């Protein structure tokens, strides 16, 4: 039975940085996923010493601790399934150093992605993993979930950008992992273990990130397809042709309709749209990339090709994709957009087949599902649009999610491309990683012997996310 001494927490971080009213705890019990649970307290540490003091107390009393940024995660990573203390890290939000000479910056975990990129811009550089949620996503959360985004096809994910991290361990010890250099050869890369660990190993209190030069030119193109499978074949050929896009995005018909409804964009409601961006320092490098994209799309029956180097035009072309995730709520008034089967990665050659499979599974289960994503990185996103009041739809969703991940694994794909595992993808993750689950648990035990750091996630997540977790929705049918 978890019991938290609020007075003790107040003594550490100050009364103004503690919440314990049931209403606040309810709010802090959810993220962008379908799950909900109640923590016992929310603490907002101001510095590393306070994080250490909280961890020493929590470890001595075996109280779960869940580090949290802006909670824009979609799979329940910060839902406190066993209660405990939510550590709201957003007040540790200082940019500690920008070092253009050595090509890195040091930041605290609560820095918001967009704020970091605004600060880097005067130096002519940017931090590239930037997910679509960069307006709220914190660097700590991005590292914990190995986030990536539209430009990761060329510049990589958080894992590629993190050089070092400073962490507070479960027992309150503080360690620096990794090095502020581009290469570090020997020993176990412990800093990399933290990336994608979803808060289960240690609390990140500082990160050293590499950045890259902002290209002088960016050119964005768009091509439309009457068949999703044609778009899929085009993706595969673009990526195997030596083309180096800085973005390659797929949007299917359902997503197009939703974006049109939400943003009144007037996009053609075709089966699929591919968005392509190439960047570089000179036009002689960028132009051939765009031409190659056009010719490959045309070969696969793409049409309506247009492109632009102008910022305003690029923004117009990009508009449909930029707000797609929230727009899906407007697809049908009766249906809510749920983050289920929300992401996966498959080999390029399987993109079209995967998109078709998603639609086939959705139709069979009486659900509406969309397919979109950073297809240049093999990343596919879906959402399940469903009547959340209807209990039978949840059973259908559970079956659909399981079938989709079985298919993904059968074609050599993986459960998460960039959104993480949390609660709702744990079953598929455990199936995929069956051989190494015990090894992962051993690593977790070495970091956190009392299992207090975000327990019940990843390899310890539920097998049945519908019956074993509390859903944020209440059914009445």
């Amino acid at each position, binding site marked *: 039975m978890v019991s938290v001494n609020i007075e003790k927490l107040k003594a550490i971080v100050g009364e103004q940085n503690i*919440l314990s*009213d*049931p*209403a*606040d705890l*309810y*709010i*802090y019990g*959810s*993220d*962008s996923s379908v799950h*909900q649970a109640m923590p016992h307290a929310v603490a*907002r540490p101001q510095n590393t010493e306070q994080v250490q003091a909280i961890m020493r107390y929590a470890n001595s009393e075996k109280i779960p601790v869940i580090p949290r940024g*802006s*909670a*824009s995660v979609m799979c329940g990573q910060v839902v406190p399934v066993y209660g405990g203390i939510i550590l*709201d890290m*957003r*007040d540790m939000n200082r940019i500690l150093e920008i070092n253009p000479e050595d090509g890195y910056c040091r930041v605290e975990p609560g820095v918001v992605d*967009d704020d970091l990129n*605004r600060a880097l811009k005067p130096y002519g550089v940017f931090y590239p993993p930037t997910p679509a*949620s960069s*307006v*709220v996503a914190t660097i700590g959360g991005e590292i914990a979930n190995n986030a990536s985004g539209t430009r990761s096809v060329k510049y990589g994910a958080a894992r590629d950008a993190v050089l070092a991290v400073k962490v507070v361990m479960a027992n309150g010890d503080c360690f620096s992992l990794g090095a502020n250099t581009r290469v570090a050869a020997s020993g176990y890369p412990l800093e990399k273990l933290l990336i994608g660990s979803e808060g289960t190993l240690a609390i990140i209190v500082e990160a050293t990130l590499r950045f890259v030069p902002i290209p002088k030119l960016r050119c964005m193109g768009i091509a439309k397809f009457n068949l999703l499978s044609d778009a899929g074949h085009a993706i595969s050929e673009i990526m195997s042709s030596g083309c180096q896009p800085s973005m390659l995005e797929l949007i299917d018909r359902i997503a197009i309709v939703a974006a049109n409804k*939400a*943003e009144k964009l007037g996009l053609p409601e075709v089966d699929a749209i591919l968005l392509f961006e190439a960047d570089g320092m000179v036009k002689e490098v960028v132009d051939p990339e765009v031409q190659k994209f056009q010719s490959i799309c045309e070969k696969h029956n793409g049409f309506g090709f247009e492109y632009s180097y102008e910022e305003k035009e690029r923004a117009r072309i990009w508009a449909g994709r930029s*707000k797609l*995730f*929230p*727009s*899906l*709520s*407007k697809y049908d*008034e*009766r249906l*809510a*957009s749920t*983050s289920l089967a929300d992401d996966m990665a498959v080999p390029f050659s399987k993109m079209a087949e995967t998109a078709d499979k998603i639609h086939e599974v959705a139709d069979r289960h009486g659900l509406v599902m969309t397919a979109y994503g950073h297809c240049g990185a093999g990343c596919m996103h879906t959402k399940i649009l469903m009547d*959340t*009041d209807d209990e039978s739809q949840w059973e259908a969703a559970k079956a659909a999610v399981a079938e989709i991940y079985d298919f993904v694994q059968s074609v050599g794909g993986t459960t998460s491309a960039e959104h993480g595992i949390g609660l709702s993808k744990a079953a598929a993750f455990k199936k995929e990683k069956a051989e190494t689950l015990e090894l992962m648990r051993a690593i977790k035990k070495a970091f956190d012997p009392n299992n207090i750091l975000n327990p019940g996630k990843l390899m310890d997540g539920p097998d049945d996310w519908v019956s074993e977790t509390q859903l*944020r*929705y*209440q059914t009445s049918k």
Partner: protein
Amino acid sequence: MTNLEKLEKWKSALNKCIRCGYCYEHCQIYKSTRWDSDSPRGKLILLYGLLSGQVQPTPYVAEKLFECFHCNRCQKACSSGVPIQDVYNDARAFLQEAGYDVPGTTSLTDQDACALCLACVRSCKHEARHYANDRIEVDRLKCQSCGNCLDVCPAIGITIEQGFGTNPEELKRAVTDFFGNPANTGAKAVVFSCGWGNYPGLQTARYYKLDENPEYKVLMTICAGRVTSKTVLDTLDAGAWGVLICCCPEDDCEHGGNARVKARVKILTESLKNIGIDPNRVKVVEVPPKEAGKFTAETKSFMEEIKSLGPLMARSAR
């Protein structure tokens, strides 16, 4: 047994909220406290809790719901299409009917100070104030926290307790911090920007981080009409070379602040002139919402003007 019917009809809308958190950046109250519970997303979650019985109505819950500046930026920015203000309004009505009469950001009248002159009743654009039972009563469902009434009360008997950074004393503190910080050697001016008009647009213009200029500080005020003469004089006294106030165009101003601030600054600048201070150091300009370009141009031109005038007083004299 409390009547939840007013909330029941919004269940589907509350399900539509995907809890992405993109509304955070639009909310002054969240930005002031940095707690999720004060964000639009947090409040929608709270309402879902009330509806599902997982959260019980309490004065604390009601206070959260009545804390809002009605700028509607969250609703306009929500591409999930949740009609946030409509949901809030019904939730507030439900809480009020259930007996939770809390002020939040609405205006309060000190009945002992009130002379029943009815100036506040006449000035309220939202018909939120009325005379009944020998006193001035406030309809909290109609009050939009614009502060019109504070401005016209001759007895200085009206307050908005929760300012979230926008009350005169909070603005004064922000000004003092800006000019008092030894690192801000180039600090020259303060720009007051309307929280219903131009400020939200500036906040979200991702490539214009206008409030981070070392020469001037942009401060949000709920309605430019709430920038008092005292606030302007305090700002000059803190070390500002000049004060720029950006209000909404007259036709767009729903709270009467445009006319009030213009009239006030006219009187103030005449007084300044009489004591030998150039009236151009205090200026009101109309900046329509979303026109970050006009804001930039007006600010640039104002900064050039006050630089040509030089400092109002030597730094050591303050």
